Every structure is written in structure tokens, then in C-alpha cells.
């Protein structure tokens, strides 16, 4: 079993509900503990397992079918820029370098489902694993002095006291756009595998060869909408527009 998330960059609206739900569930969970520091003070901070960032892509021919760049093209069409919201949490990598560099054995990857976890009873808070993570998925719990990270809500997904539909990570349940899907990437029939098969996955820092389990489904190509008004108006149209403006004075 290889559990993980498929995150749809096309439908994510960047509302941060997943990050807030994560804080809410893990704030006092069995494996977690994500404290806030000076929450209502001048410089609030906190440990988060999931952070959402917002980017603009401009001039990518995938999203901008006509001339690219900052200026309109010869037809007067503006270049399309694409806003992409990227929630980032632990990818539960196949090559989890954070685990191999850990000197204490506190970081481990479970053989049965591939979830990467930290054992707070062994962690000495050296931060070395957070250095080894390219995705910024690990943050130190400054109250306990141990490293914290996404647990894939391991204390929810196997909890048989919960209704079956709720045995999913808190971020997945909270997402209003259904942009987050949880499942087993080893099972080709699972919804996550099928989405990835249909849409492909973004290659995020693939050159580092960490082989993330989580998949980011790429933004879809936008549908081009033809302009409804001709851009260069003839004399008749200009006269009609002038009359319309006069009438509406």
C-alpha cells in the first residue's frame, strides 16, 4: 500500500481550508501537536503541516494559447496568466532522504502504507531532517522541541470508530473544491491512481529524485473565449455607439 494525496491544481481555489482543518485536527492529536506561538500578539507564528502558497504563471504556451509576454499581441488579445494555488505538505516520498539522514531513527517510513512519521520519543530536535526535505514539509514544534510533519492523519484513516466516509485526512474532508483526494497509489483502481493516469502529475523538483507519493494534477488548459465585439470598430458601429451614449446621457 502506498497512501497519499492527489491534489488538483486546476480546482484548488487557494482558500486555506485544508491548512486550517489540519491545524484544527492536529492541534491536539495523538501523533501531532501543532502549536501556535504568540497567536494573538504582534508577531504570531506556529507550526503548520500544510501551507498554501499562490503563484502566477505567465507566458506558458499551455495556458496562454496566443502570443506570450507582458504586452497584447497583434490582435489586441491580452496574454493569459494563470494563477495557481499550491498547498504543500509532506509528499511521503519513496526516496525519503529526511528518514535516511535522521541520526536518531525518530523519522521513519512505514513499510505497510508508506507514511513518513516522526517518533517524538526519539527526536532530539536537530532540524537535520528539515534540511533534507526540499518541500519544506517539516517544521519544529518549539514547545516540545521535536520535529513535526504531516501524518496523513494516521490517527483518522484507520480509526474504526469513525464512519467509513470520515476515515480520511482532515484536509481532504475540509476541501470545499474537492481538490484533494486521498487513496492508495499502488491500487490502479483507486481514485488517486485513476486521476493521475488521466491527468498526469506535475514534476516538482524531480531532478532531486525524491520520488514523491503525493501527486499534483496539472492545471487544465483554459478554454479560449473569442471576443464578442470586433476589436476594430467600423464607422457605422462607432456612430451607433455615439448615438447610444447620447441617448443614455
Amino acid at each position, binding site marked *: 500500500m502506498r497512501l497519499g494525496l492527489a491534489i488538483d491544481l486546476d480546482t484548488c481555489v487557494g482558500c486555506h481550508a485544508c491548512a486550517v482543518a489540519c491545524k484544527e485536527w492536529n492541534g491536539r492529536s495523538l501523533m501531532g501537536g501543532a502549536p501556535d506561538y504568540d497567536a494573538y500578539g504582534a508577531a504570531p507564528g506556529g507550526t503548520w503541516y500544510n501551507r498554501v502558497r499562490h503563484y502566477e504563471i505567465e507566458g506558458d504556451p499551455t495556458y496562454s494559447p496566443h502570443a506570450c509576454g507582458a504586452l497584447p499581441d497583434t490582435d489586441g488579445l491580452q496574454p493569459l496568466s494563470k494563477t495557481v494555488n499550491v498547498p504543500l505538505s509532506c509528499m511521503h516520498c519513496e526516496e525519503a*532522504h529526511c528518514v535516511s539522514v535522521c541520526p536518531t*531513527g525518530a523519522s521513519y517510513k512505514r513499510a505497510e502504507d508508506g507514511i513518513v512519521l516522526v517518533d517524538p520519543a526519539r527526536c532530539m530536535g536537530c532540524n537535520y531532517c528539515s534540511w533534507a526535505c526540499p518541500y519544506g514539509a517539516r517544521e519544529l514544534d518549539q514547545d516540545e522541541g521535536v520535529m513535526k510533519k504531516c501524518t496523513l492523519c494516521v490517527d483518522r484513516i484507520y480509526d474504526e470508530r469513525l464512519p467509513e466516509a470520515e476515515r480520511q485526512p482532515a484536509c481532504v474532508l475540509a476541501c470545499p473544491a474537492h481538490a484533494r483526494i486521498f487513496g492508495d497509489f499502488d491500487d490502479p483502481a483507486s481514485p488517486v491512481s485513476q486521476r493521475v493516469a488521466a491527468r498526469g502529475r506535475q514534476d516538482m523538483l524531480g531532478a532531486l529524485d525524491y520520488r514523491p507519493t503525493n501527486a499534483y494534477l496539472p492545471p487544465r488548459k483554459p478554454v479560449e473565449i473569442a471576443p464578442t465585439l470586433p476589436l476594430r470598430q467600423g464607422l457605422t458601429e462607432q456612430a451607433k455607439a455615439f448615438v447610444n451614449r447620447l441617448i443614455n446621457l
Partner: protein
Amino acid sequence: MKPALSVIFFTVGSGAGLGLMVWLLIASLMPSHIRMDALTFYKGAAIAAALITAGLMSSTLHLANRRNAIYALTRWRTSWLSREALLSLALYPVAALHLYALERGLPQVTPITLWLLVALALAILFCTGMIYGCLKTVPRWNTWMTPAKYLLFGLMSGAVLLPAVLSLRPAEVGPIGRPMMAVVLLALGAALYVAYLMKHPRTTHRINDALGVRAGRVRLLDAGHSHATFLTDEFGFVLARERARVLRWAAIAAGFVLPLLLCCFTQWFWTASVLCLIGLLVERWLFFAEAEHVVRLYHGQPHV
């Protein structure tokens, strides 16, 4: 990367202590070339031990949860940090055995413990370098030059400390000749440091790689946080270019050039040692301050 003073002091102090230990042991093998009475040897050994131990103690200061530090000895199969911790602790019983054998005059034991100590010191220096060198997430560090620097700079600062220690010997032994090992290693060290600095401006990862976007321009619209986070504290350190330039030249001058001149033309070996250590502290501070972690791409930096 955030330049943590405890780690900077640890790597420079322990490195110099290990280097001094290596050269003291090798010097003790050739009494015809380097005349050293037992008291001077023990003084040198005490200085080396103090540097190594102070460094190791300092390295535990940056741990957020020191109670679990003992577990750091368990993952030597995969972790360079664990290997370093294990070998550092192994140093003490071997050193004690060597001193005991010296004291008792056991000529069949001393060569074994001596070379074991030398091998341990070199291995520890290499492990310290590999802690940083093995990180693919910090392209600046992920080069063979990182362990080479740790190994060479440790041996180099030790070689500069050796004539300073020898200057403690009684006056009737005579003056100290030109410390050629220190001179050669200082020259090599300067060359390696300049090579490391010149390799710097190579771009390895772009913000497009971070998001998996092949073409187009990517820029951060919003980082999603209003104040500093663990990630910005740990990886967001920004060094002004002008300040970096000044510090690099200070490191080259104090760490390599001045000690080289002092060793060549004067007998001020203590001044040379102190200057060399100060220069290496600056060099080590820059080593952290100038290294950029790829997570900075997600915070909007165009390339790392």
C-alpha cells in the same frame, strides 16, 4: 541557511582540535625531526582535547530536545550525523588507551592506538563534511568540495597550532624551524577555498522546477503567511552581497594569507593560530549564510 553559532564553533573548534591531535601524534613518531619533550606533548594534547570537547559540547546547544541526544548513536548505517557522533565518542576511549600505553611504555600498543586515533580524526572530519555535502536540497553544499574543505581546513588549522604548541617547549631545545606542513596546507587551503568560492554562481534549480511548470514566468503572488515561519527562520537567511564580499576577503586574509606569512617569516605562531581560527570562523559563518536551500523557490526566489 541560518548560521547557527553553536554549529560554527563546533565545526571550527573540533576541526582544529582533531587536526592538532593528528599532527601531534605524527610529530611524536619522528623525534629526530621534531624535538618535543613529554610535557609539551601533554600540553598540546590538552589543548586538542579542550578544543574537541568544547566543540562537541557546543554542538549539542542547537538541539531543541537534548534528552534524546543519546539516540543519535543508533543510525550510523544511513546518517552521516550519527556516524560523526559515534566516531567522536569512540575517540575518547582510544585516546585514553593511547595515553595509558604511553605512560606504561607499551611499544606494541602505541603504534596501533596512534594510527587508530589518526584514522578516527580523519573519519570524523570527513563525516562532518558529509553531513552538509550529502544534502541534495542545498546545491551549494552538494559537492565533493564540502567534505574536502572540512578535512583540509581541520588538518590545516591543526598544522598551524602545532608550532604554537612546540613554542611551549623549554628554551634549551632551540628555536623552531619553518613549519613547512602548515605552510603547504595553508596554501592548499587557500586554493581550495578560492575554488569553492569561484564555483558559486552556478544555477541549479529554478522556481519553474519547483512547481513543475516547463515554460513561462512563475512568480509568487502570496506566501500564505504574514509573519516569520520556521521555514523562513531556518532557510530564509539573506546575506547582503557587499557584506559577503567583505567577509570572504576577511576569511581569506585572516584564515589563510596572514597565517601563511606569519609561519613563513616570523615565529609568531600563536598569533598565526588565533588569526587562522578567526578566519575559519568567518569562513564557516559564510558557509551557512551563503548556502541556499531549494525550499526558497517555494517562497518566490527565482533560482537557487
